[in-house]
């Protein structure tokens, strides 16, 4: 049986699954097949235990507390920052800002770097495959400043047209903000190449790593990017926590994001001095538990290892692509040569929402809709797609369940 071999080449997927308690449940009387990982991933026991231990035994507010419990909480929180810094290979933990999610990371850059650096007539460059979270913050900024948002197009396979992007870069470009891996197409962008093109003209680059960071090792120094954002809940960690990596030189020059406690070093009514990095960008009591949980999640990811994760997911994607291709009337949206873990598709004559409902009755959870990438839907002339997205704990058996659930769609709709 080739299926079994596929799952066992790199690691034992059964033992990985055992670490995710949620996966054991049934939905509508059928075993849950969770294939909506691009929306959020499930959490391993190690993360759940870390969260519950923090609240049961470690909870105190951080920084400035002179008592042991507060010092321990501070150490755990700052320790988590160091773990994230190492995970992204940042030069220093001070280059890691905790945020609510990737969206907040992008908004932070737009509201600080963007508002101080972008003026009327300037330009910000994004791509056609961006998530709304990497479109709208720039639209708001451009509207406020009288700047222009330029959009690099994609081809019919959902690949960025690099030449077109290069042609958009010029003396008025203040920033390139680009997704590392598309959430609706699965395309992996040549981000190092993009960084080089932009840096040739002295333009900084932000990379949205929401999707990429749980599928592949990210090294912000090897990428040479200026900003990189991730979100914890897609990294097998808690919701409500994310991180922004920023080059210290840029972070130091940027004005603060929000005002409040913790982001200052001294306050009088006449004058406030801001705190040093990274605290300058973290006003108020942060999501301490979330940050510590994220630390546990990146430990977990590191322990499993991206070599194993990537090769398991690669084989799973190839298997799923082959199986789904056999289904009559199925068309993939997103067929880039470089892609990972996303199967976006439409079934001829059936609306994706009906597809989603039918497979749900078989216990299969997939996402249907525009995936917060309406311009991508417009580009491919579809109102929505059905999307199955894979994670380290998925199996070929689950792909078989998906395929058999999809054949039910034809039974119902003909």
């Amino acid at each position, binding site marked *: 049986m080739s299926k079994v071999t596929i799952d066992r080449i790199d690691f034992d997927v059964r033992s990985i699954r055992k670490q995710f308690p949620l996966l054991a449940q049934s939905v*509508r009387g059928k075993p849950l097949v969770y294939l909506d990982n691009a929306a959020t991933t499930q959490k391993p026991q190690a993360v759940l235990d870390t969260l519950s231990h923090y609240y049961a035994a470690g909870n105190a507010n951080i920084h400035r507390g002179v008592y042991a419990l507060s010092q321990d909480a501070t150490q755990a929180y700052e320790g988590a920052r160091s773990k994230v810094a190492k995970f992204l290979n940042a030069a220093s933990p001070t280059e890691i800002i905790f945020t609510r999610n990737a969206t907040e990371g992008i908004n932070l850059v737009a509201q600080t770097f963007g508002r101080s650096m972008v003026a009327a007539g300037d330009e910000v460059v994004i791509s056609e495959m961006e998530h709304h979270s990497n479109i709208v913050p720039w639209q708001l900024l451009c509207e406020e400043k009288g700047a222009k948002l330029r959009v690099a197009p994609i081809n019919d396979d959902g690949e960025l047209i690099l030449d077109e992007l290069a042609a958009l870069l010029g003396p008025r470009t203040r920033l390139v903000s680009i997704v590392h891996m598309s959430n609706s197409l699965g395309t992996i962008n040549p981000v190092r190449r993009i960084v080089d093109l932009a840096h040739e003209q002295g333009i900084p680059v932000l990379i949205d790593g929401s999707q990429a960071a749980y599928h592949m090792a990210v090294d912000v120094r090897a990428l040479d990017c200026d900003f990189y954002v991730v979100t914890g809940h897609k990294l097998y960690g808690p919701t409500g926590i994310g991180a922004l990596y920023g080059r210290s030189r840029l972070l130091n020059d940027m004005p603060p994001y929000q005002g409040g406690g913790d982001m200052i070093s001294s306050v009088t009514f006449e004058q406030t001095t801001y705190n040093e990095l990274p605290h300058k960008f973290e006003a108020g009591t942060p999501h301490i538990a979330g940050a510590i949980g994220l630390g546990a999640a990146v430990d977990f990811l590191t322990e499993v290892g991206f070599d194993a994760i990537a090769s398991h997911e690669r084989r799973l994607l190839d298997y799923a692509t082959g199986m789904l291709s056999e289904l009559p009337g199925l068309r993939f949206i997103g067929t880039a040569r470089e892609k990972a873990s996303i199967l976006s598709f439409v079934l001829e004559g*059936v*609306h*994706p*929402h*009906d597809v989603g*409902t*039918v497979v749900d*009755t078989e216990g299969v959870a997939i996402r*249907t*809709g*525009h995936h917060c990438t*309406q311009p991508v*839907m417009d580009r491919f002339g579809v*109102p*929505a797609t059905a999307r199955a997205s894979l994670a380290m704990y998925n199996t070929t058996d689950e792909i078989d369940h998906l395929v058999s659930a999809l054949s*039910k769609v034809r*039974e*119902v*709709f*003909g």
Partner: protein
Amino acid sequence: MSELRDLYQEVILDHNRSPRNFGHLDDANRRADGHNPLCGDRLDVTVKVVEGVVTDLRFKGSGCAISKASASLMTEAVKGKTIDEFNELFDYFHRLVTGETLSVDERALGKLAVFSGVRDYPARVKCAILAWHTLKSAVNDSQEVVSTE
């Protein structure tokens, strides 16, 4: 499969395949657009109201089977009804799909009762109700059709 057949009843599949009153009503005097941001569905309803009676109506747009069949069956059910009767029917239908229907006389709903399965799929209630909200806004807000002549 039986669970699915409760949702996708034959009447619904039929109206999805061949929607009735589909298109644009040229002599309409009311219209409204409906939009379901969740799925990106858009719906355009054109209506002719004469002395408080919906004498004719059409719908246009794309959507899932539930939203298309709901719009199609709605046009059949509402044609010839007064606005008051429509409002009452709207209320019945709303209760049917949201599961508050126990007190509703199913005879009053006629064919529309095929949507009773929707109540078990909360994510799909908006699909079933979109056309109804759109029509409600068209007939009650007296929105004039923009003339193309």
